[in-house]
């Protein structure tokens, strides 16, 4: 039994179907990215996983329990950091920590929070209010807040979308480091294919909405630990990259019209591997 099992997930608004027949699994410790154009429903899937939205059909089962609403088991890093502006960085994280462990005293909370502030590299800035922090710092606080509650699964909604390239790079490194250290299960939405290849173990490719579906599941066959500074030298890198870009540019829109058949189960592909896998779509199962 996989840690997270999603079956036949659909979301409809009246006559419009955003997506349907979405299904995939995640194992504990896996880092999964989902990639697709705007409007395909990626955020909706994340919201359903977070329990903030309800599916029109299908099931989400995590750790043998059906997901029916928001929970501390599933931490979220929102797209726009969502920090409470009247609280300092430390207090923002403490708010989450106190929600998780309400019986902890002040010292316990503070120590725990400090750990995660240090973890995201914000030591010294913990008493500043969000207005006094840069975009990157704010996002780090958001990440620290999500990690601090030690959730079973972390959901990240385009967490670096609003950041400049330099900051993004730095924080990606941090995230990579933390996830390696904590073996956190992560589900992340991103537009940045390079980011996906750097961070993810599996990349879900979603076709265009409405009536979107998961077209393929790309396995990231580049060896870990991965390093941002050198990953593009790996020979698998551009094969995977081209595959993803090709999907986004050409193939993603073909599923709506029916030119490409919607798969009953999205196939696992390994475009990184030389030869055979990049030419044809092979159905491999775990």
């Amino acid at each position, binding site marked *: 039994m996989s840690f997270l099992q999603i079956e036949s997930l659909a979301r409809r608004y009246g006559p419009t179907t955003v997506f349907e027949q979405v299904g995939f699994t995640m194992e504990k410790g896996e880092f999964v990215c989902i990639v697709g154009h705007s409007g395909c429903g990626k955020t909706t899937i994340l919201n359903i996983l977070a329990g903030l939205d309800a599916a029109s059909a299908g099931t989400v089962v995590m750790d043998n329990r059906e997901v029916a609403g*928001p929970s501390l088991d599933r931490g*979220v890093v*929102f797209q726009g950091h*969502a920090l*409470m502006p*009247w609280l300092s960085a430390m207090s923002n994280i403490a708010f989450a920590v106190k929600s*998780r462990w309400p019986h902890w005293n002040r010292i316990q909370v503070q120590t725990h929070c400090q750990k995660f502030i240090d973890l995201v590299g914000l030591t010294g800035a913990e008493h500043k209010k969000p207005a006094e922090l840069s975009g990157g710092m704010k996002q780090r606080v958001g990440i620290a807040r999500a990690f601090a509650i030690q959730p079973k699964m972390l959901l990240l909604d385009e967490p670096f979308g609003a950041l400049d390239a330099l900051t993004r790079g730095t924080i990606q490194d941090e995230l990579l480091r933390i996830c390696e250290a904590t073996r956190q299960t992560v589900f992340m939405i991103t537009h940045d294919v390079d980011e996906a290849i750097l961070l993810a173990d599996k990349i879900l490719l979603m076709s265009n909405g409405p009536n979107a579906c998961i077209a393929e599941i790309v396995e990231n066959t580049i060896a870990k630990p991965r390093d941002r500074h050198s990953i593009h030298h790996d020979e698998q890198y551009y094969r995977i990259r081209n595959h993803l870009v090709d999907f986004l540019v050409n193939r993603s829109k073909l599923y709506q019209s029916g030119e490409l058949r919607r798969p009953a189960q999205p196939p696992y592909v390994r475009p990184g591997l030389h030869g055979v896998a990049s030419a044809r779509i092979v159905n491999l199962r775990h």
Partner: protein
Amino acid sequence: MKLESLKAAVLSLLFLGLFLGIWHLATLPKGEAQSAHDEYAKLLGKGTKKSEGFPSLAQMGEAAAAQLKDPLYDRGPNDKGIAIQLGHSLGRVAAGYALAMLFAVPLGFLIGMSPLLHSALNPFIQVLKPISPLAWMPLALYTIKDSSVSGVFVIFICSVWPMLINTAFGVASVRREWLNVARTLEVTPFRKAFAVILPAAAPTILTGMRISIGIAWLVIVAAEMLVGGTGIGYFVWNEWNNLNLTNVIFAILVIGVVGMLLDFAIGRLQKAVTYIE
């Protein structure tokens, strides 16, 4: 920054000086002071200190000094010092305002969180909001029968609306994402209300409170003028009875200064809860 406030202060003083200058020139005595040369003139108060029309700066200063020198005197139910009068008025304002706050903030919370309640109660709010305190006063007096309690009620009913509407608006406008954060953290409704919604809506709520205190102070003066009793509004009316314009102007200035201080106090509070997004 300091230079800016200095510049503003200098400009303020210049305006004040200009205003006082105009007052002084406008109230210069016309012609020579008339002495009482016969009995008729004496009966008309010539040759004595008599307030004729708008007071001069000197007369104003004298009257102000006289009132401020002994602010706590008590010579009977209709003649008390300015501090006692202010004390009574402020007491009534405090009572009415506190009641309004206790009513407006929780109800505003509920209205902000429930669109159904908002639609249901909105017509009543819109109809009651524009009613003037002078219209409420007779009704209050008739049903409540006690003039002091009526005054407190009128302050309540007039100052409750800005606080109510602003609280509802503030609560309804709390950013979705903060509420979502609270949801994902399984925050209890009680904690959500106090730790997320209240601080988020606080600047808007305090704006409402600031508007309300202005209205409450305005209303008390009107209410006291109408009904009497001890208070600054009553003081204005009593001096008006004597056609003593000088004291009326002094009272108006006092009312203005106290109003400014009240607004300043709430303004400080507002500053304390304001955050930058």
